[in-house]
Each structure stands twice: as structure tokens, then as C-alpha cells.
């Protein structure tokens, strides 16, 4: 019962923040709302007993990605574009389509029977994740690290000032 009330509270707050991300005219406000959404998702991960992911969510999303977005916004004031409207011409069509999408998928999800089991999370879950990365999932792990390196080099190359 406590879990349900906690879930509803976190979910409602997170969805309101997500709405703020989408409707905020000021990009900086949108970025702050985005940080709130990331915190809400981390709280949901703790509710789902995925503590490692909650911490990774806070460190990677809030510590790296949100900071990157805030930096990019603050470094280029003209990027805000506040003189023109925040939405393009097809926003009402997009809104209707998304309401329809949400209704359809929610209806399907409520209808669909999932075979849930009520087993406990193993006590050494974080240890299993760690040994998974250097054991069974070592190739995807290395590919992901190469992807990050390539993205890093590519981002520097793209954003670099070209003084010919």
C-alpha cells in the first residue's frame, strides 16, 4: 500500500516535470525540468530495487548529460530562439497522434496478461552485474566503450572552431 502511494506520487510528479520539458518556452527551464525527470526515474529505479541503476542514472544522466545540455544552452545564447514560437506548424497533429498512441498502447497493456513472478532480487545483484560485464557481456561492453570513444572524438571534431 505504501509502495503504491509512493509510486503514484513519484509518477505524477515525474510526468508533470516531463510535461514541463515539452511545453517550457525557455530552454533553460526545460533543462531544469529534465533534471527533475531524471531524479524521478532514479526514484522509480530504487522502488524497483535496481539500486545500481538508480545511482548510474543520477551520475550519468544528471551529472553528465543534463550538464552537457545546460552547458550547450548557456554557451550559445542565440540558440534559445525565444523570439519565435516554440512549436512548429504540425504540433496539434503531433499532440493528437500522441494522445491516440498513448490510449492505444495503454489499452493493449491493460489487456495483455504478463506472467509476473514474485521472486526476490538476489543479494549479490551488483556483483552479478559487474561479473556479467567482464564475463558473458564482455563483447557488447567493449563495443559500447569504443562507441563512446568514437562519439567523444566525433563531438570534438564537429564542435571545433575551424579557422582556415
Amino acid at each position, binding site marked *: 500500500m505504501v509502495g503504491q502511494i509512493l509510486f503514484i506520487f513519484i509518477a505524477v510528479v515525474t510526468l508533470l516535470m516531463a510535461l514541463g520539458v515539452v511545453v517550457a518556452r525557455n530552454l533553460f527551464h526545460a533543462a531544469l525540468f529534465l533534471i527533475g525527470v531524471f531524479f524521478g526515474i532514479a526514484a522509480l529505479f530504487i522502488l524497483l530495487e*535496481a539500486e545500481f541503476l538508480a545511482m548510474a542514472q543520477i551520475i550519468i544522466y544528471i551529472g553528465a548529460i543534463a550538464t552537457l545540455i545546460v552547458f550547450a544552452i548557456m554557451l550559445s545564447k542565440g540558440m534559445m*530562439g525565444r523570439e519565435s514560437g516554440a512549436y512548429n506548424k504540425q504540433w496539434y497533429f503531433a499532440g493528437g497522434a500522441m494522445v491516440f498512441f498513448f490510449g492505444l498502447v495503454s489499452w493493449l497493456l491493460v489487456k495483455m496478461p504478463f506472467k*509476473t513472478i514474485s521472486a526476490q532480487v*538476489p543479494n549479490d*545483484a551488483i556483483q552479478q552485474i559487474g561479473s556479467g560485464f567482464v564475463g558473458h*557481456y564482455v563483447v557488447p561492453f567493449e563495443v559500447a566503450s569504443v562507441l563512446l570513444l568514437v562519439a567523444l572524438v566525433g563531438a570534438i571534431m564537429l564542435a571545433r572552431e575551424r579557422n582556415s
Partner: protein
Amino acid sequence: MTVPLSWYLIFATALFSLGFFGVLSRRNAVAVLMGVELMLNAVNVNLVAFWRYLTPTDLSGQIFVVFVFTVAAAEAAVGLALMISIYRTRKTINIDEINDLQH
């Protein structure tokens, strides 16, 4: 464990829809990127919820979320670098003004 699985899935669907709406309707490219981040987070919630309720003893669900983190970080870095580069040459990042391929 009193929260039903479908609540998490409906929450993730709502978050995904909001993010998709942002991607489709915002003019500023940074706002579009924020919409993509919302969608990726919704997918993460789905993955963790399915892991917790269907296979809690097998940690591969959590490991997959870490790969989504990696891709999200790479996407944000490259996307913002592209925007800074485009802003430098075009003086705008409104994506309905950067449509040279259309005509």
C-alpha cells in the same frame, strides 16, 4: 511489490508519448534532443520493470539498461556538437528553417 506491473508500463508509455510529442512538435533542436532523452528514459523504465517482475533473478535486464545509458550519452554528445556546428554556420537551430534538402 504491491505496485502492479501495468502501472509502470502505463507510466513509461505516458513518458514516451510526451517525449515523442516534444520530438515531433518543438522547433528548437535542443528541445528535440530533450524529447529523445525522455523517450530513452521511458524505455529504461520499461526494461527495469520487466526485469523486476518477470525475471528478477537474471540480471541481463539491468545490464541492457547500462547499454542504453551509453548510447544516450553518445547521442547527447554528438547531437549537441552538431547543433553548435550548425549554429555557427547558419545562426539558427530551428529545425523547420534547416530544410535545404526539401527544396
